[in-house]
């Protein structure tokens, strides 16, 4: 894409380099083989195996009882009153809600932070390092820390709220406040990642574009919308996509902060699949859920590229 600095020193200068051992050389295959074995075993094979499992009533503990059920696991997900129906769609709606709450700030605020960091001033790298630091923590640490900060008894947030005279909240056990807590924790933990990506892309934009624009009398806000945003478009789509996928994979934050509560209202789809497949051994059904969710995500990411990527070839 436009921002990629393609450094291919002599990539095409010596055609057939590496084939110097003759028309067929085993060597390249030996180089890729170690990675390829793991790739085939844990990414290639499971892709098909997951679909295969979803067609069975697959209970891992009872290998002798694994009847082929065809599309039944999928149909059950669309039949009101079937066993997995209510839990699955509640989790789907919960996850969709979290995506709606978390993705816009994670993209927009990250862009704002990157613009802030992009200036030329002392301590810039220090701030960048600080904004990114929480991303270096485990989800357990980030979630546990914010679980403590949002505690109704003794938590820092309620202390602060009391000191300004607002009413306390039961942050982790009332809706929609549980989502607020989970979203804030997620933003704190991961926004630095998006910020760093945006910042790198901002630094790729030639300063001469801004100079030309300011000679033409464009103010900083106009420059932002007419230069920065269009130039960032490929990176924006990329960040939007990975953020969407990350939010759809929500697991650790509610697992630790709310246990999915109050009454399963923050149970994410990942938690549901974990519950169904691993804890309750209904792996066929869990695999069907995974395939359906992956399919929906694939459509969303494709749409994402179609809608926002339409002007990609303008440069």
């Amino acid at each position, binding site marked *: 894409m436009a921002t990629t600095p393609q450094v291919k020193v002599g990539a095409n200068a010596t055609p057939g380099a590496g084939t110097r051992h003759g028309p067929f050389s085993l060597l390249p295959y030996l180089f890729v083989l170690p990675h390829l074995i793991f790739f085939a075993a844990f990414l290639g094979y499971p892709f098909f195996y997951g679909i295969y499992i979803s067609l069975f009533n697959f209970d891992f503990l009872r290998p002798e009882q694994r009847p082929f059920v065809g599309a039944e696991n999928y149909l059950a997900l669309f039949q009101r009153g079937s066993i997995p129906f209510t839990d699955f769609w509640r989790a789907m709606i919960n996850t969709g809600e979290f995506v709606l709450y978390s993705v816009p700030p994670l993209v927009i605020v990250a862009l704002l932070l990157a613009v802030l960091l992009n200036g030329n001033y002392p301590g810039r790298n220090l701030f960048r390092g600080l904004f990114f630091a929480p991303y270096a923590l485990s989800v357990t640490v980030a979630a546990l820390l914010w679980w403590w900060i949002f505690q109704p008894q003794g938590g820092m947030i309620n202390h602060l709220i009391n000191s300004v005279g607002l009413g306390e909240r039961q942050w982790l056990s009332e809706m929609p406040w549980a989502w607020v807590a989970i979203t804030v924790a997620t933003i704190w933990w991961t926004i630095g990642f998006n910020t760093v990506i945006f910042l790198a892309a901002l630094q790729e934009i030639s300063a001469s574009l801004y100079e030309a624009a300011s000679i033409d009398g464009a103010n900083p806000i106009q420059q932002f919308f007419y230069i920065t945003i269009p130039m960032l478009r490929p990176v924006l*789509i990329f960040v939007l996509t990975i953020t969407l996928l990350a939010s759809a994979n929500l697991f650790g934050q509610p697992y630790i902060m709310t246990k999915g509560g109050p009454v399963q209202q923050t149970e994410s789809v990942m938690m549901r699949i974990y519950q169904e497949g691993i804890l309750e051994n209904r792996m066929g059904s869990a695999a069907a859920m995974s395939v359906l969710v992956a399919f929906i995500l694939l459509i969303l990411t494709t749409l994402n590229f179609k809608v926002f990527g339409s002007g990609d070839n303008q440069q």
Partner: protein
Amino acid sequence: MATVSKTAERAAGSSVNAELGRRVVFYVLLTLFSLFFLLPLVWMIVTAIKPFAEWVQPNWIPKDPTFQNFSDIFQDPSLPVRRWFVNSLGIAAAFTIATLIIDAMAAYAYARMEFRGRNLLFGLLLATLVMPGIMFLVPNFILIAQLNWIGTYQGVIAPGLAGVFGVFFLRQFFQGIPRELEEAALIDGANIWTTFTRVVLPLASGALATLGVITFMTSWNDFLWPLLILGNEREMLTLPVGLATLQGQYNFDYGKLMAGATVTTIPVLILYLFLQRYIVQSVAMTGLKG
């Protein structure tokens, strides 16, 4: 003419004011965001060094700081914290070394060698980037169970080695190395393997270090997969998973929990403080590649 210059002067004057205003807003925003990122971490450590009687109080400076919480969690016989620490270290180190070796080899072939099926294979690698990870959870768990690897370290480590990020990252770097250096080595009689290990890898040491650090941190911090594979083997847990079980055990003893969180954080925080530049750079490259 006179009016024009006067307007220009006024414009210049107001732009100085506007510039000043912008500066103020800029530094205020920067400070606020910095506090948002920094204070929770400070609060974690402050809570960890407060005695039990003090944690409900909102003071930021402990009146009676103590390491009691730390020694308590390390001495609790039901909590193998030391063992978890060693487990995390071992898993992350083994995973990082294996990743560097197999990814560097593959990346070199994809960057420099011509072979039948290269584009197809590389295309398959690329395709998994858009595959939602959720698809692989259940089948990989069953696969690990069939290998009898539930509750083993290889069960935690092996699936991650399929990852493609390191291959892309290093391939990009290898493509930037001038070909002449390798050709000179080949002319001098070195074979491809020697050229790779003696010429290419030393040149790529910075990129390898960057990938190594980020791989180590990812592995150290991983939660869901080690929870699935090691969840029933208390002795074998990693620190992040163990920390989550601590929450069940100490429930609302926040001092001990934050002490546990601090212990889990310190290794990556030290790594991060020293190697921040490399880590941030590798993330920045992720985006530029897209």
